Structure formats: structure tokens, C-alpha cells
């Protein structure tokens, strides 16, 4: 071959061979190095040919071909290795986040470092999650301890609460003779025990009398419940039958009053005016039904009323199911027994039935509605918090997507990009969860201390294993949901688009913005639901405040004046009370004073049965009604209007069969007729007719949120044992009244204690406690949700404005008015709010029916409340969107165009 041809010529044959060999190389190497290799190969041959002629050229070509061959295996090896995940690409070092996987510890440290570099974001997420998780844990600890945990007795599911029923009364206490018959006639029980809770004992301690609350029980109570006294023993049937003066002390009483002195067993205690032998100490941490009893004594203390089948002295019956007997079978059995008793005793037991329920239900009472409601609300709050965290994560994922794009271009696989994102979310979630648990444990402590009396079974509430497990589950779920959106976004980083448009600035694809908007709409909707719930409860609370009790508890002091054995006859007691009331009326601080038993809004209850005999409108089974003994000035003192007839004179003797009734009762018995002068009978005096001398206005003695019941009144002179005073203070000075009261009673008889001194207003507030508590908590949740939703809304709109800064700048530069720009941004925000509120409205309509048990005089779909919630949310939301909108209108076009 002779001299060189053109610049590309001469080596044509060799080049073809070179190309052929090159084609065996991996595609990526061919692509990258091929053009340069071929070009330089030719050039090299040229030069070699110029230097050393064709031999030189051939030598050079062969040399280069050999080199090409020599590099073939390592090139293939490298190419193959590059395709492995985690391939060590030395160029891409730590910092861009695409570092090689160097072990869990390092990865965690990287993630933690990344989070530390964004303190604002990390703090926002941890706080949001922490508060939401903490609230959930706290509420769940309430639910777990109060609703879910069993009573601390052996085999607690076998314990049943049995109450009597009448057609118009769902659950009543039990007449003791009925209980005796049940024991004989029913085979379903290992044992039936009776308890009378809330019994006030007059404890005389070194001469000073003190009212101590306790309970009365049948001798078999420890056997039925399955717990024995911690020290000493319980009383026996014998002792009860004989009427022995024996008592047991609660563990708390023993500890606080007697310094846990073990010698107290066998010693004596003065109760009433008699010496009682202390038989034993009850076990610590008592549960329902003895949780408030400081003393426990035999049931026979109730007295003669125990023997009467028509009397209901507040006895509570607990039964333990016999082996292999189910609750359903026991129900059938007891229905049978009740039927037999109704036949045998048509006077008292006519249409009498029984109601059986798990003892735990009675322990829980009405708390279940409220607690489940709160758990639902707090779950919504968690959803809102998670949505906010997801939104924050999405924003961050978008700004990191440029990094992701580069990493993917350099060969990192999906796992390498999503990995750090997932780890960060995990760390944040765990930190948030930990914060939540700290907050929850603090809250539980506070709740246990402040909610005594508002919620039952608080002793069982704690952050125990089940609560912690549930919280862990919640945290993991929150992490999964909140982290999935950003992680998915990171994985689907749009490579070319991201790199070309500069990634972070353009803020990602439309689908991300769409997702963020959807999250915000969801948050707004959920916030609306919580707001609606809080609003309805607020209205309930207000309604209860305004509700007509039928009497005026303001400025009224009540106190109990139990006369002891020093006043054995009714007459002696009447004389005492009459004198006391007279003195009170003459006291300057007192506007008016009266006596009543039982006291309205108080714990006591007295019900009796009006006999249907001789009455057209009352069925044979009779009419259940509330009853009270009153002094003549009662109605005046309590501001209850006298509608017809007259009040008692105060001189009625035992034989005078006079009675006063309320409006509703008058209407029930003789509608559209004048009731004064008419008569009816009621238990226990079935043979005597009482005639009506006066009619007064209706009252709700159980509190505003109870249904109305009928009421009849009897003169106190005919049989009072212990009268409660109701004293209206002049000039709003209740403390002066209390002082004067104490003084007067002490002057008249120093041995008589003045007990249960309370302001009636407080007692009235107590009846609204459950609603009040629920309202307070819901308002707190609503506020928190609102804050989160508004922050989320603000964040999304502000971010969107930042993304569109260039676009807005251009518009403004082209002459658009700032106001129009602001309106455009605001419209976006308002659109999300409106859609959110609309969805929330639908949601609220579905969910508020769970509130119906707690509402008072408010419909679950009350338009005023829902409307107010909608307006509030819209206005606040518009404000939250308005701030960035305002910012948008203030963009300086010149500056933004420069920056771009």
C-alpha cells in the first residue's frame, strides 16, 4: 500500500476492522467512546503512516486493535457492574443523597443529618404528628380504661346488674322482698347480692359529728363479687339478721384516717349514736360499686322500708351467673320469675319486669357515648395532621426531585432514591410518636386528677400495654400514609423534564400540585366535621344553661340537717325544723328559707306509685311519680309558681290526707279539669285517698337535660326523718347564709352536724358535666384542626405563588393590575375551601348523628350551627389564602424577570 490518501483515507480497511471490533463492545461504552476512538484511530494511523510509511501504519493499527481487544473483557465487566443496584460510583458522593448503601447506621445518620438541615420542616412535622398522636393516645387510654377494661373481679363477665322495670320506667332500683323471692325462685345464680350506694353515715369523731359516705350491703356481697376483705372479715347473715352494729372500713379510709393501724380490726367506731365494731378492712383500689364507699355496713340499716314490697330504697342488685348459664338464659328465667311475682302480688308487681345487663355497663354509665364520640373526633384530627405532613413532604419531595433526576441519570435505581425519603419519614414519624407519648402520659396524669367525678372508673385509666400498642400502630399507619405520597413522587421523578426545566423551580408535574390540592380539600372537609360537632355541643351547653328547670337555683344554699336519735318522734323533729326555719327567716342574710326531702339536683330520689283505682286515665298498673316532702314556704323559696289552690299550712297532722301536685300530673290525671279537690291514692297508703289542695309549676329536679317527670308533694309534718334546707340568700351573699346557718344549728343543738352544704348553682352545673366536658374537649380539637387546616392551606397557596413568580411577574409587567393577580390567587384558595366545605357538609350530615345522645334541644342537622361553621371556615380560609394572594400582587416584575 502506498502513501496516505485524504485525511480520512488510507486507513479505510483498518478502520473498518476497528469498527467491527468496536461493535462487540457494550452499547454504553460504544456510545461514549466510539466516536473519539474511531477519529483518533484514523489520525493515529495517518501520523504513523507519515512517520514510518505503511509498515508503520500497519504496526500502529495492529497495536491499536490489540489494545481494543485487550480492553474488551474489562469493559464488559464494568458495564455489567454498573447495572447492579448499589454500584459504587465514586463520582457520586455523599451529600447529594445518592450515596452507596453503607449500612443501616450510616443511612440513618445521613437521614438525621438531612433533617437537621431543615429544622423548620422537621419541627413542623414532629410537632404536628406529636400533638395528634398524643391526643389519640390520651383519648384511647380513657376508652381502654373506662370502656374496654373489665372490672377487677374474678370472672367479671359473669357479673350482672339486675333492675326492676315498669312499663314507663326502664330501670329502677329493687324492692327488697322481690330480691328475696328472686333468690328462691331463680336457678340462674350462684348468688344475688344487694348494695345500697351513697349512704351517709354520721361518724362521730372525738365528739364532732361528720357525714361520711359509705354503702350498705348484703352479707353475701364478697362472695358474689369474688373479693374478700384485706384484713379481718365481712359480716355474716347471722349478724345482719340480728341487727348487730358492725362495719367495715375502706382501704383509703383506713390509710388516711387511721394511719393503717392493724389493731383497728376489733375496735369500735361511733356511727350515729351507737358504738359499732370494726370487722375488717376492704381491699385497696375498690371498683364499682364500692369505689366511693368509705364505710360498709349491713343492708338492714335502711330500716323498715326494707320489708315493704312497695318501697324502693335505692337498692342495687348484683348477681353472679351460675355455671354454664348464659345471660340470655338468665334473662328468660328472670322474666319468668317476674311474671310469677306479678301474678302473686298484683298490687305492687303488676306489669313489673326485670332488666339484666353486664355489671360493667352500669359501671360505665353514660360515659360510653361521650368517649366514643371523642375517639372519633380525635381520629379525624389525626387524619388532618397526617394530610398536613404529607403535604409538607410533597413540597420537599418536589424540591428534591432535581437531585433525584440527576441521581437517576447516573444510574441510581428507584430504591436508592426512595430509600432516604422513606427513612426520613420514618425518623420523623418515630420522633413525632415519641413526643406524642410524652404528651399523652402528661395528659393522662392531668385527666386522672381533674376528671374525678366527671368520668367513672378513672382508676383504671393508664398508658398501659394496649394503649402503647395501639399508639404504635397509629404511628406506623401515619408514617405509611404521610410518607407514601412523597416517596412515590420521588420515585416517579420526571427525568428529562426535571433536568431541562431546572427541577425545583418549576415545582414538579401537575399531578403533584393536584395531589396537594386534594389533600387540602380533604383537610378542610374533615375540619368542617369537627367544627360542626363542636358547634352543636356548644349550642347544647348554652341551651342547657338557658333551660327551664322550673325553679331558680341561683343564690340558693342547701344543707342537710340530719337529726339523730335525740329526736325519736316525728313531732320532735317537726318542732326542731319549724324553729330552725323561723330563725332563719328572721336572719338578715336570708331572703327566704324552706325544707325539702329529697333535695332537687341532689343524689336522693323518692318515687312512688299512683294507684289507678278510681282514676279514669290511669291504667291498672299505676303511674310512677316522683315525690317529696316540703315545708310550706318551699315553693316561694324555690320560685316555683303556684298555679291553683293553695300551699300547705305547716300544721297538717299525720291524718290529713292532703297533697300538692305539679302541672303535668294534674294534666295526666284530670285533663282540662280543675284538679283542686279531686283525690287519688298512692303507695304505701293504698287505702287512703289524698286530695289535691294545690297545683304548682313543673320542675326538672334531676337537671335540665333530663326528661320531665311528674311530681307530687306531701307536708313535712307528716313524716320527715332528715330534712334538707334550701335557703335563698339576700344580696347574693351565700357565705353569710352558710355562717348563719351553722351558728343557728349549733345554737339549737351542738350535736347536730350541718352536712352537704352546697350552692345549688354548683349542683346544677354538675348535672351538665358530661356535656360540658365533651364540649370543652371538642372545642379544643376543633381549634387544633382549624389551625392545621389553615396552615396547610396557607402553605399550599404560598408555595404555588412562589412557583408562579415568573408568570406573575410577566403578567404584572405586561400591565395586569395587582388586584387582578391577587384575585386570581385567591380564587384558587377559595375554590379549595368551597369544595372542602361542601364535602365536609356531606360528611357532617352523616356523622353528627353520633352526637344525638348528648345533644339537648339541638337537631343533629341544625342549619344554624352548620351554616355558622361553614361561614367561619370559609372566612378564615379566605384570610389564610389572602396573605399569599396579597404577596403575589406585590411581586416586583422587574426583579423577578432579572432573577429568572
Amino acid at each position, binding site marked *: 500500500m502506498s502513501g496516505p490518501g485524504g485525511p480520512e483515507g488510507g486507513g479505510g480497511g483498518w478502520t473498518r476492522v476497528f469498527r467491527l471490533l468496536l461493535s462487540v463492545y457494550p452499547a454504553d*461504552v460504544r456510545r*461514549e*467512546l466510539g*466516536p*473519539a*476512538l474511531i*477519529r*483518533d*484511530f484514523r*489520525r*493515529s494511523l495517518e501520523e504513523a503512516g507519515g512517520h514510518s510509511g505503511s509498515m508503520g501504519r500497519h504496526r500502529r493499527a495492529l*497495536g*491499536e486493535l*490489540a*489494545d*481494543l481487544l*485487550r*480492553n474488551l473483557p*474489562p*469493559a464488559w465487566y464494568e458495564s455489567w457492574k454498573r447495572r447492579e443496584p448499589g454500584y459504587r*460510583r*465514586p*463520582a457520586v458522593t455523599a451529600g447529594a443523597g445518592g450515596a452507596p448503601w453503607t449500612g443501616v447506621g450510616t443511612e440513618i445518620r445521613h437521614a438525621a443529618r438531612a433533617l437537621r438541615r431543615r429544622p423548620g420542616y422537621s419541627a413542623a412535622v414532629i410537632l404536628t404528628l406529636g400533638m395528634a398522636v398524643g391526643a389519640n393516645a390520651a383519648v384511647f387510654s380513657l376508652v381502654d380504661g373506662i370502656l374496654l377494661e373489665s372490672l377487677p373481679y374474678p370472672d367479671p363477665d359473669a357479673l350482672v346488674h339486675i333492675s326492676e322495670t315498669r312499663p314507663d320506667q326502664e330501670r329502677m332500683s329493687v324492692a327488697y322482698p322481690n330480691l328475696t323471692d328472686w333468690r328462691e325462685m331463680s336457678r340462674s345464680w350462684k348468688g344475688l347480692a344487694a348494695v345500697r350506694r351513697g349512704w351517709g353515715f354520721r361518724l362521730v369523731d372525738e365528739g364532732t359529728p361528720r357525714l361520711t359516705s359509705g354503702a350498705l350491703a348484703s352479707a353475701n356481697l364478697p362472695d358474689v363479687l369474688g373479693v374478700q376483705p384485706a384484713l379481718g372479715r365481712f359480716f355474716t347473715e347471722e349478724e345482719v339478721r340480728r341487727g348487730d352494729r358492725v362495719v367495715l372500713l375502706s382501704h383509703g379510709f383506713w390509710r388516711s384516717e387511721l394511719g393503717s393501724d392493724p389493731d383497728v380490726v376489733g375496735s369500735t367506731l361511733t356511727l350515729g349514736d351507737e358504738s359499732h365494731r370494726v370487722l375488717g378492712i376492704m381491699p385497696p383500689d375498690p371498683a364499682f360499686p364500692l369505689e366511693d364507699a368509705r364505710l360498709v355496713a349491713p343492708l338492714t340499716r335502711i330500716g323498715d322500708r326494707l320489708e315493704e314490697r312497695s318501697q324502693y330504697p335505692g337498692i342495687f342488685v348484683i348477681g353472679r351467673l351460675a355455671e354454664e348459664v348464659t345471660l340470655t338464659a338468665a334473662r328468660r328465667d328472670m322474666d319468668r320469675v317476674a311474671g310469677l311475682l306479678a301474678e302473686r302480688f298484683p298490687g305492687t308487681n303488676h306489669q313489673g319486669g326485670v332488666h339484666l345487663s353486664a355489671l360493667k355497663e352500669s359501671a360505665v354509665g353514660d360515659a360510653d357515648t361521650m368517649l366514643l364520640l371523642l375517639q372519633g373526633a380525635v381520629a379525624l384530627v389525626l387524619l388532618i395532621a397526617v394530610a398536613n405532613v404529607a403535604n409538607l413532604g410533597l413540597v420537599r419531595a418536589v424540591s428534591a426531585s432535581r437531585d433525584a433526576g440527576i441521581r437517576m441519570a447516573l444510574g441510581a435505581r428507584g430504591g436508592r432514591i426512595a430509600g432516604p425519603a422513606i427513612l426520613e419519614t420514618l425518623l420523623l414519624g418515630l420522633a413525632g410518636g415519641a413526643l406524642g407519648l410524652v404528651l399523652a402520659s402528661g395528659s393522662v396524669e392531668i385527666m386522672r386528677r381533674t376528671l374525678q367525678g366527671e368520668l367513672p372508673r378513672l382508676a383504671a385509666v393508664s398508658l398501659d400495654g394496649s394503649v402503647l400498642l395501639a399508639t404504635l400502630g397509629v404511628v406506623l399507619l401515619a408514617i405509611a400514609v404521610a410518607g407514601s405520597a412523597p416517596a412515590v413522587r420521588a420515585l416517579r421523578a420526571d427525568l428529562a423534564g426535571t433536568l431541562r426545566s431546572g427541577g425545583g423551580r418549576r415545582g414538579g408535574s401537575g399531578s403533584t400540585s393536584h395531589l396537594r390540592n386534594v389533600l387540602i380539600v380533604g383537610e378542610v372537609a374533615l375540619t368542617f366535621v369537627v367544627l360542626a360537632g363542636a358547634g352543636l355541643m356548644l349550642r347544647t351547653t348554652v341551651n342547657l344553661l338557658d333551660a327551664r328547670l322550673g325553679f331558680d337555683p341561683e343564690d340558693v344554699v342547701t344543707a342537710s340537717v340530719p337529726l339523730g336519735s335525740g329526736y325519736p318522734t316525728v313531732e320532735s323533729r317537726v318542732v326542731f325544723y319549724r324553729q330552725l326555719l323561723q330563725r332563719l327567716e328572721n336572719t338578715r342574710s336570708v331572703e327566704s328559707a324552706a325544707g325539702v326531702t329529697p333535695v332537687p339536683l341532689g343524689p336522693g330520689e323518692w318515687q312512688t306509685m299512683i294507684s289507678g283505682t278510681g282514676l279514669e286515665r290511669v291504667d291498672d298498673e299505676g303511674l310512677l311519680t316522683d315525690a317529696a316532702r316540703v315545708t310550706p314556704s318551699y315553693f316561694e323559696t324555690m320560685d316555683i309558681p303556684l298555679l291553683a289552690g293553695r300551699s300547705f299550712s305547716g300544721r297538717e297532722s299525720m291524718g290529713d290526707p292532703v297533697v300538692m301536685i305539679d302541672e303535668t300530673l294534674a294534666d295526666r290525671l284530670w285533663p282540662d279539669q280543675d284538679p283542686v279537690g279531686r283525690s287519688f291514692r298512692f303507695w304505701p297508703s293504698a287505702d287512703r285517698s289524698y286530695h289535691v289542695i294545690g297545683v304548682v309549676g313543673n320542675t326538672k329536679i334531676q337537671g335540665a337535660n333530663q326528661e320531665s317527670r311528674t311530681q307530687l308533694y306531701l307536708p313535712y309534718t307528716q313524716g320527715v326523718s332528715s330534712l334538707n334546707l334550701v335557703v335563698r340568700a339576700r344580696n347574693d351573699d351565700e357565705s353569710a347564709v352558710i355562717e348563719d346557718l351553722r351558728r343557728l344549728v349549733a345554737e339549737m343543738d351542738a350535736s347536730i352536724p350541718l352536712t352537704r352544704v352546697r350552692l345549688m348553682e354548683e349542683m346544677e352545673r354538675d348535672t351538665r358535666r358530661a356535656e360540658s366536658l365533651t364540649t370543652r374537649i371538642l372545642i379544643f380539637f376543633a381549634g387544633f384542626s382549624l389551625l392545621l387546616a389553615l396552615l396547610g392551606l396557607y402553605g399550599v397557596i404560598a408555595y404555588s405563588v412562589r412557583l408562579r413568580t415568573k408568570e406573575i411577574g410577566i403578567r404584572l409587567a405586561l400591565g395586569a393590575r395587582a388586584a387582578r393577580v391577587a384575585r386570581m390567587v385567591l380564587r384558587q384558595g377559595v375554590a379549595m375551601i368551597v369544595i372542602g366545605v361542601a364535602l365536609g357538609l356531606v360528611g357532617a350530615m352523616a356523622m353528627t348523628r353520633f352526637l344525638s345522645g348528648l345533644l339537648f334541644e339541638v337537631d343533629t342537622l341544625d342549619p344554624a350551627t352548620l351554616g355558622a361553621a361553614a361561614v367561619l371556615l370559609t372566612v378564615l380560609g379566605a384570610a389564610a389564602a389572602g396573605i399569599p394572594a396579597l404577596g403575589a400582587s406585590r411581586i416586583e416584575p422587574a426583579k423577578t424577570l432579572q432573577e429568572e
Partner: protein
Amino acid sequence: MAEESDVSPYLPLRPVELQILACLSRGPLHGYAILKETEERSEGSAVPGLTTLYRTLKKLEEEELIRDCQDPDPRDDAARQRRTFTLTPLGSRVVRAELRRLQALTAGLEEGPLPGEGR
């Protein structure tokens, strides 16, 4: 020294790598020019093949010891194909460290003239 831990992963350099880095330590060059210079300095005895050269350049670029110091006009194909490389600060440190290492290695051999040396 901090420098040592910085560069030690890269040492020892392969002969081709050292050649390339040493060339570039005198200024930026494109691939073929590096070849020519190496040829010159070694008097033709240690000239790498093209493929080896380019693969090594690629590797050194990935290891961030050298970099492409041009911003090629995307419209100029010819210019785009001819990439010019320069040492990075890391690359400078590495080549200096390698030379020091080699010096240390050969230090004890200084006694007396070596065949072919010192005339």
C-alpha cells in the same frame, strides 16, 4: 494529614493513570494530545493504546480526578467531540501524593550510580 486520607483510596495509581495525570498537571489537554505528550516524554516506550487511554480518561473523570473544562457549543459537532481535560484539585493532590510515594519507594536506591544514569 487530611490530604492523605483524601487521596489514599486512589493510590497506587496505575501507570496509565499516572501518565495522564502527570501530563495534565502541566495544563489542559485533549485526549489525543495527551497521547502525543506521553509518547514524547517516554520516548515512545510507554504509549497507551487509544482504547486504554479513553477508558482511563473516563474512569479518571468519574473519580473526579480530572474534568472536562470546556463548555462545548452544542451546534459544533467537531468541537464537541474533542473534549479537553484538566486536573481537579483532588487530581492534583493525588498525583503529587503518588509522586511522593514513588520517591519514598525509590529513596533508598540513591546510593551510587545506576546503570545508564549519572553520566
